[in-house]
């Protein structure tokens, strides 16, 4: 009986998360949503070089990790004596991500100490 109730609760959680994701995505695609500034420097009207790699790495990770997890059979995620684990992220990817993030953060910090936020 408890298994049956838990099963329904699991379905509810999946549907709830799906609907929440849909509503968030819908809000990001509204014409008034501030998408343009994602790649733009604060207050400026030009694309910022540090933001492009980080944006690509973020989107890349989201796709790579989702596809990787969904295509792997569950048996491959089972550790012999330590239960199930989510898939590992390759070390090389972590280095790329760290580099992109560090460059983004450094750029942000530098701009704080420049007159007029580093804009021309």
């Amino acid at each position, binding site marked *: *009986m*408890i298994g049956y*109730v838990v099963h329904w*609760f*699991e379905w*509810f*959680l*999946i549907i*709830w*998360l799906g609907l929440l*994701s849909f*509503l*968030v995505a819908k*809000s*990001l695609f*509204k014409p*008034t*949503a*501030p*998408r*343009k*500034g*994602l*790649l*733009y420097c*604060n*207050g400026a009207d030009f694309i910022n070089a540090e*933001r492009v790699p*980080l944006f690509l790495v*973020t989107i890349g*990770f*989201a796709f790579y*990790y*989702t596809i990787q*997890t*969904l295509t792997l059979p*569950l048996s491959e*995620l*089972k550790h012999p004596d330590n*239960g*199930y*684990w*989510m*898939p*590992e*992220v390759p*070390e090389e990817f*972590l280095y790329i*991500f*760290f580099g992109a*993030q560090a460059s*983004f*953060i450094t750029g*942000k*910090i530098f*701009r*704080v100490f420049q*007159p*007029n*936020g580093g804009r021309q």
Partner: protein
Amino acid sequence: MTGLRGIIVSVLVMFAVFALAAYAVLSGIRAVDIALIGFIIFGTIIVLFAAGVLYQIGTGQISLSGIISEPREGPSDAEGNPKASLSRFQFLVFTFVVAGLFLMLSIEAGQFVKIPDSVLVLIGLSGTGFLVGKATSTIREPETPEDASKRKVAEAKELRRKAEELEAEAEDLIEPVKNGE
């Protein structure tokens, strides 16, 4: 009056809980049944809460318009709307990806799956970027007098340009009236 009603409702709920507990003890209820009843009660509360949040988002009572925006007082575009924040966007994407896959795998495996260190590092780095972004958008170097005067000159130029535009528009509107059209 509202306070009195709240107290009465609380007392009634407490009484109902005690009555149920007494009935359960006296009738020799099994531990597994208590677990089931408890799960149904807590599950219902969580479901109602989650459905309420979703309903309020759907009807616009909880606004998602600023979900990836910088704070209002932070950087903005020419119209004064706050700009999008890459750190917030990244944090949002990572949260949805990791939380969604964690939920799915846990359900599939029938137990909590473990999260590897590499994923935790990734989320930690993303959170650090978000915090730095937040800090830099609030901590700014004080404006020097030179910068302040430059900003004021730029603002004055912008105002003059707008005034000239308005004047030109007004001329266009007045012209036909003057000509008796």
